[in-house]
């Protein structure tokens, strides 16, 4: 029914005692996610959320005691890259980083280190992932989507919610929604997720939500053309964004003539992808 996360996901929350950490942990648990532990250095031994979740000082210790296999990171930007490295070194194979605003130099080092290890990082600056009816890791609202056969992959947050909601209004459900994040340096690309959807028996069609900046969508188009047999529908945000200006996301910027929405749309269309003009149109193409 899903990729990456499911009913067997045993999650730890790094930065669980922060305002965001505790709020979203509570939401994830309500959704049915198995949150087995939290990590906040200096607060090991405490319990949060009415004594339901133990807090540890280190990821290593949290895994040792709870057998966690996935981590979601809510720690502040200045500590976030250390948190990712800690999760990698502790042997977690899936790490989801929600934190926005991590210095690019830190992320380049993390990415270089990740290349040598066996861990997968989603994000940073990601809303996380949702496998409807199974598991929610991150901050995507649970009630705006339902189980189904559409795989969604996106660089954005609320724009993704908009799409999920539009699908739900038409009774279209989702296998897994993956937010790969809006930063220029990230752990997991469109291509990685497209490849997973392609082999997932429960995903029949794929929605790709891109935006200006970088060449991720162009690379995805090439990959789709060569490797993806399932139908792909896309929306690209930022057709009206001016060059040289960062549009909210650290990665959403047209620089040196690269990263234009028009180039991305053209690339995707020539790869056989249906690119819609309004995000709400996506549902029409999925019926």
């Amino acid at each position, binding site marked *: 029914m899903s990729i990456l996360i499911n009913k067997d996901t045993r999650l730890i929350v790094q930065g669980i005692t922060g305002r965001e950490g505790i709020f979203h942990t509570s939401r994830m648990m309500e959704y049915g996610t198995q949150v087995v532990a939290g990590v906040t250095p200096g607060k090991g031994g405490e319990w949060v959320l009415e004594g339901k979740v133990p807090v540890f000082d280190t990821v290593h210790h949290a895994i040792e005691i709870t057998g966690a296999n996935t981590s979601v990171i809510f720690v502040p930007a200045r500590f976030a890259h250390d948190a990712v490295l800690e999760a990698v070194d502790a042997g977690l194979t899936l790490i989801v980083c929600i934190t926005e605003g991590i210095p690019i130099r830190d992320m380049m080092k993390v990415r270089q280190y990740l290349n040598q290890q066996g861990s997968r990082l989603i994000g940073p600056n990601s809303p996380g992932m949702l496998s409807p009816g199974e598991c929610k890791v991150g901050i995507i609202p649970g009630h705006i989507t339902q189980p189904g056969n559409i795989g969604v992959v996106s660089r954005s947050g609320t724009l993704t919610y908009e799409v999920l909601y539009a699908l739900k209004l038409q009774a279209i459900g989702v296998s897994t929604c993956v937010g790969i994040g809006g930063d220029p340096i990230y752990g997991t690309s469109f291509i990685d997720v497209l490849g997973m959807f392609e082999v997932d028996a429960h995903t029949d069609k794929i929605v790709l939500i891109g935006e200006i900046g970088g060449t991720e969508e162009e690379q995805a188009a090439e990959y789709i053309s060569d490797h993806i047999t399932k139908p792909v529908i896309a929306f690209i945000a930022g057709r009206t964004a001016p060059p040289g200006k960062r549009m909210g996301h650290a990665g959403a910027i047209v620089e040196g003539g690269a990263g234009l929405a028009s180039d991305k749309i053209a690339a995707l269309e020539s790869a056989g992808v249906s690119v819609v*003009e309004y995000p709400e149109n996506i549902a029409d193409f999925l019926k």
Partner: protein
Amino acid sequence: MKLHEYRSKLLFSKCGVPIPRGRVALTAHEAKTIARELGGPVVIKAQVLVGGRGKAGGIRLVHTPEEAEEAARQILGMQIKGLPVRKVLVDEVAEIRSEIYLGVTNDRAARCPVMIASAEGGIDIEEVARTHPEKIVRIHIDPLLGLREYQARHLAVSIELPRVHWRNFIDIACGLYKAFTVSDATLAEINPLVITGDNRLLALDGKMVLDDNALFRQPDLAEMRDLDEETPTEREARRYGLSYVKLDGTIGCMVNGAGLAMASMDVINSFGAQPANFLDIGGGAGAEKVAAALHLILKDANVQAVMINIFGGITRCDEVARGILATLDEFKSDIPMVARLVGTNEEEGNKLLAEANVITATSLTDAAEKVVALAVESQLQ
């Protein structure tokens, strides 16, 4: 955040890159004093954070302290591309034999820094990249290993730098990369790096852009922010933690989330109007932040109508509605507004807005259609 030429060059110098003797002056008199200290001809350079200073007359070569004073007076009275010149750099003049380009930035596709060199220095490198891409050499730098000597040497060989300059060039490249990393820069460039008449290498002009996300660990550099870099509106937006970009259209936009904000702009455009701004209020904004955001939009004289698009998650629609109402109370604006609120507490939010006669919409396209119609209408009045 951008650094001025003189700040950039001082940073380069600290990392071992040779720069001309010189200092910055706030007044024409100071410029004269510096020119006298330096002796001989000097160059007076406007310190503003835009390109094209030379063409605008912001760079002048003079021969005496008196001429320096006069040139500085003129330049300090200028505006270049709308920015007032508040400082001039007074540098000794170097005899230029040839001009090289040397810069380092982040290559996002390769996920690492890239150093770029060209024998065609002194002009805009993007121009060179367009017209003579073969004259540009790039090397990728492993972010963990840093720039290696052999890489810098490869650049020197590739731009056909005379062998006698290799050692200095390698040291300068390593110094520039050091300046780039220790400052958490996203761009550090020397343009031109010149070979002087007496066969030295000298960084004649310098430019640095810093990673705003890393300023927390660069307190000294953060203090150097030139307020002129941003418009007053952008500055105010930053103060409230809002992500705001001024555009040329007439439809003000307030949205939560960067992707959704861009999509909203695009949909407005599809309906035949142009957005007046990009504005992301972020996640979980309260009434106060919403009010500040709306404030910014309404201050823009071009705005003929406002579209508010909120997909509530952490952001609560009732809070957004309260922020809107507070602004309306204060402003008594007659700019028409269309709000589309969906998600957390949407019923309460929409009820509050309806009571205050704000037009509501049920979807993004619905909102866009309505706001564009209102703008057309308001223009006809």
